[in-house]
């Protein structure tokens, strides 16, 4: 499971970095979203991957799932969601005001 998780995080990050470096605002926004997915999964995995373990104290539990990364990831998701919404609106505003969707607002030949 760890290998699969690491692979997914790496793939998402790679796609995110590639898309953020594109010249149009839409791929950039998409890339930022991928990056935030990757970091959310990463944060989640930092509590170690466990299956079927209780997060709070139970009498017969053999182990526990770490609740702190889950709380962190919730915060990160909320912030990431708000940021994505903001950057989409900003990209639309830039498209309207600059006349095209290039990140520098210039017409390409």
């Amino acid at each position: 499971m760890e290998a699969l998780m690491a692979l997914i995080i790496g793939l998402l990050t790679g796609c995110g970095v590639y898309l953020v470096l594109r010249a149009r605002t839409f791929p950039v926004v998409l890339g930022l979203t991928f990056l935030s997915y990757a970091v959310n999964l990463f944060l989640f995995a930092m509590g170690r991957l466990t299956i079927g373990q209780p997060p709070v104290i139970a009498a017969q539990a053999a182990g526990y799932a770490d609740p702190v990364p889950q709380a962190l990831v919730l915060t990160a998701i909320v912030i990431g969601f708000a940021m994505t919404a903001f950057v989409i609106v900003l990209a639309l505003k830039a498209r309207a005001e600059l006349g095209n969707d290039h990140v520098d607002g210039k017409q390409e030949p």
Partner: protein
Amino acid sequence: MNHLVIAPVLLPLLAGILPLLPHHPTMRQRRLFSIAAVVAQLGLALALMAAVSDGKILVYTLGHWPAPFGIVLVADRLAAWMLVITTLLALFALLDAIRGADTAGRHFHILFQFQLFGLNGAFLTGDLFNLFVFFEVLLIASYGLLLHGGGPERTRAGLHFVVVNLVGSTLFLFAVGTLYGVLGTLNMADLAVKAAAAPPENVALIRAAGLVLFGVFALKAALLPFHLWLPAAYAHASAPVAALFAIMTKVGAYSMLRVHTLIFGAGAGPAAGLSEPWLLPLALATVIVGMLGAVASTHLRRQVAWLVVASVGSLLAAFGLATTAGLAAGLYYLPHTTFATAALFLLADAIARRRGALGDRLDPGPATASPRLLGGLFFVAAMAVAGLPPLSGFLGKFLTLHAALDHPLLPWIMGTVLAGGLLGLIALARTGSLLFYRVLPSEARAAEPWPALVRETLPIIGLLLLGLGLTVGAGPALDQARAIAAQMLEPQAYIQAVLNPGGTP
């Protein structure tokens, strides 16, 4: 528990939320409320500074959960120093904004208070994840403020600023996640203890996470090579916003200082001195690049923005010495450069508005109205920024060079700081003579009415007077800076205050 510690965080939060309630205050009411809130914050910051002046470290455990299980706010000398600087700057930026810039878009005062909420929280928090959250709060507010007023240029600069900072936030989370995964805590004092006791197989991971954090803070501070976002963003923000943003790069410098003295300080065992090989060379390169940018600028506002980059370099070069004298020099230089660059941003706007279609473009044009007053203010501000005696900029640079006398890289530091000063002097002298001496002949202008002129220049004069206060009161200010530096280099007291509040070993 001393509730004074959380007051500077709560007050701007409430002051930001209250005007949103369905009451529809008039603009005058909003302005008065905003000013009152900032003045109250200044009072709180000064009270906090007095409360920690004896070297006590005040810890506020939210919900009374003991550290490291709960979230803590920590007020020490450094936090109080940063709070006072921030609120003073905010007061003058606001005084400039209420002349009309705040009506260019909606909710200026609310965004302004949220920006202060984020700044104050970032300075007071003792938890690495909360530092991230407060960074996000201040960034979200700053996106709104940067775009305040609209216009294509501002939108373009805003888009770059937002995307760069979002990538920075992602990296911040990766670093925080790695530290949590290895050390199992996010409380900064607890991180320091755990990092010092880390088994050797984990040291590489901790160092990697620490360097990613360093990169994130370097991005926020606009350290080379992450400085390219700053000139466009600051040059296109409205004047009071650009003035307030003068503190934003200092948040990065503050975080660097906090994290790298506390978690990766001398007592951190294998992870100690993590950023030292990087900080000083990068800071010196930033000084040169910033000053070259200032010399090459064709617009006044962009020139001031490049001077901000150079001042970050000077500040971090002082921090990079990593000695008490070096940190003290940096901490003395920090308020000086914040106030001086903020004054220059406001002044650039005042000059640009009087040059008609030319704006802040550095081409000869007809004489501005009130040339003596504006020229005089520009002269004083330029002397302060370029670091000429007798103003505080000179003292800050002198202290940095004095602290560097025993450093192995002394020739490089001395050469860079002095060459940077010379380049800054050339840039500002050229700008000043172009704006005020080499003017095209034009018919004499009518004198401007005094009340408007006074209201316009009052924030600029206030900021310059603060710099003058730092010069005249250099003794007490420097004593304070030395006390902060000594406290920063002895992180044991901070760790004890957070983790062991009862005082029992």
